[in-house]
């Protein structure tokens, strides 16, 4: 974990309202693993005040990449940065995906910009196993990184709500279809996307007894475990309330799906 000023090496609008930034941060990338994130100060001013967390999208020798969607003021201002501009970032933060080397096919399931951490994960996993990714989005322009995954030799399947690309449906439909027809049991599943999707994902994984890791998002202040602002409910049989609050920033953002208390 280090705080540094990273130059923007590349900026690309990968889709409407979706941007990829490559950041000059070798001191972060050398320790980074897929599923971890960086905490970005977008302006030196007090609005937006807090840093914004973004998953590490790619880990390269020269630094890291992030992939983000414009949703509010912070991401809008970030999208207005140019190549050569500098960002104050802290990283790598949090616990990433746990990777077992001796698995067969790994199944990655992404909703929208949830592909962001899964690309770094895919790059790692494909070194020793077969990887498939199932990507869902509202419409085809929201299906990101398709060619990039394919270029890695990864099997990509797509679902869109409106059927404009791939099947008409959601990413978890693709997962159910795949698991229902797959010969090998307990294939490991890795997911990132909106909470409702992750919840269904968790149920499907449980049904097929697949180990499942998911990356969560909650509002963060510190990003390092100090403020207790980013908690999520984690099953805790020994607690009187049946759950405890754990910090997404340091205890996650990647959790074993079985740990999550879905309300």
């Amino acid at each position, binding site marked *: 974990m280090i*705080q540094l000023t990273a130059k923007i090496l590349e900026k690309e609008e990968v889709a409407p309202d979706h941007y990829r930034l490559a950041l000059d941060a070798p001191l972060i990338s050398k320790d980074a693993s897929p599923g971890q994130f960086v905490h970005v100060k977008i302006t030196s001013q*007090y609005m937006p005040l807090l840093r914004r967390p973004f998953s590490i999208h790619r880990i390269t020798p020269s630094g890291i990449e992030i992939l983000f969607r414009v949703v509010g003021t912070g991401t809008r201002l970030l999208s207005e940065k140019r190549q050569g501009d500098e960002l104050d970032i802290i990283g790598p933060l949090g616990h990433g995906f746990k990777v077992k080397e001796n698995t067969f096919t790994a199944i990655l399931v992404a909703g929208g910009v949830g592909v962001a951490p899964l690309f770094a994960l895919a790059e790692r996993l494909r070194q020793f196993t077969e990887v498939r990714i199932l990507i869902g989005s509202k419409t085809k322009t929201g299906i990101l990184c398709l060619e990039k995954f394919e270029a890695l030799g990864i099997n990509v399947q797509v679902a869109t709500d409106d059927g404009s690309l791939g099947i008409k449906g959601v990413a978890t439909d693709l997962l159910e279809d795949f698991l229902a027809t797959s010969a090998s049991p307990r294939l490991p599943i890795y997911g990132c996307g909106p909470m409702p999707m992750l919840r269904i994902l968790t149920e499907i994984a449980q049904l097929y007894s697949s180990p499942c890791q998911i990356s969560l998002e909650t509002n963060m202040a*510190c990003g*390092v*475990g100090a403020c*207790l602002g980013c*908690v999520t409910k984690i099953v805790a049989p020994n*607690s009187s309330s049946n759950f405890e609050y754990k910090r997404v920033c340091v205890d996650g953002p990647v959790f074993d799906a079985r740990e999550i208390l879905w309300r």
Partner: protein
Amino acid sequence: MEPDISVSIGKLRLKNPVLCASGCFGYGQEYAELVDLSMLGGIILKGITLKERQGNPMPRIIETPAGMLNSVGLQNMGLSRFLREKLPLLSNIPTAVIANICGETPEEYAAIAKELSDKAGISALEINISCPNVSHGGMSFGQDMMLTFEVVNLVRKQTSLPLIVKLSPNVTDIASIAKAAVDGGADALSLINTLLGMAMDIKTKKPYLANITGGLSGPAVKPVALRMVWEVCKAVSVPVIGQGGIMSWEDSLEFLLVGATAVCIGTANFVNPKAGMEIAQGIKDYMKQHKIIDLRKIRMM
């Protein structure tokens, strides 16, 4: 010649007047990889309660114009786990460590204070009678002169550690509460804790925070904080630790000018973990540049 920027808070000597605020710096360890802790005047730990507290439901934080709301609700492991799990690590922290304590009754405050008083690694106590995010105790003590006096007085009897009382800004007359705390035996006062606030999500038509209200901190509150610190400094003669929206050494100087002896850095840590270090250095540089030898000499009037 390096100017001496050490300050005294009761019997406690701090190497510089910059503390990291309770709830904004964990137990020190969280920031250890990013911050040279030895450059800080001190660290105030996350609030400790007698029993473990789960804290409030999520979401707990939301950004507001030049500020943030939090409704953490004093999530902490409780006194006994604190003593077991965290206390042993504190001795490694190369600066003063102050415990922040909170109770549901005056007796709870006293019990925690007693327990922490003979423990190596803890240099002072800050009693939080101003937490806006708990339904029992917390802020309600700090909103009433009598209760303030009662809590402080009871704690005072249990500890010979320097006793800092942290005041709530959600009151009509902060000076009278400050006086009550001093009468009760406070060695120093610390203010402001967060202002009670709220934000609505117009998309869901619900409050952003699951707890509905939360504590407002950050640059937005600085004018209110500074005014209250000024009022309190005029009213009491014990040292005052100013806080509320401090982001830079310039901000800190404003608090020192109105009479604060030291400052606390809260929300700024989230924005820039090195804020505390940089502010301590900034104050030192300012003094050097203006040939000020004694920090107390920079007060206004």
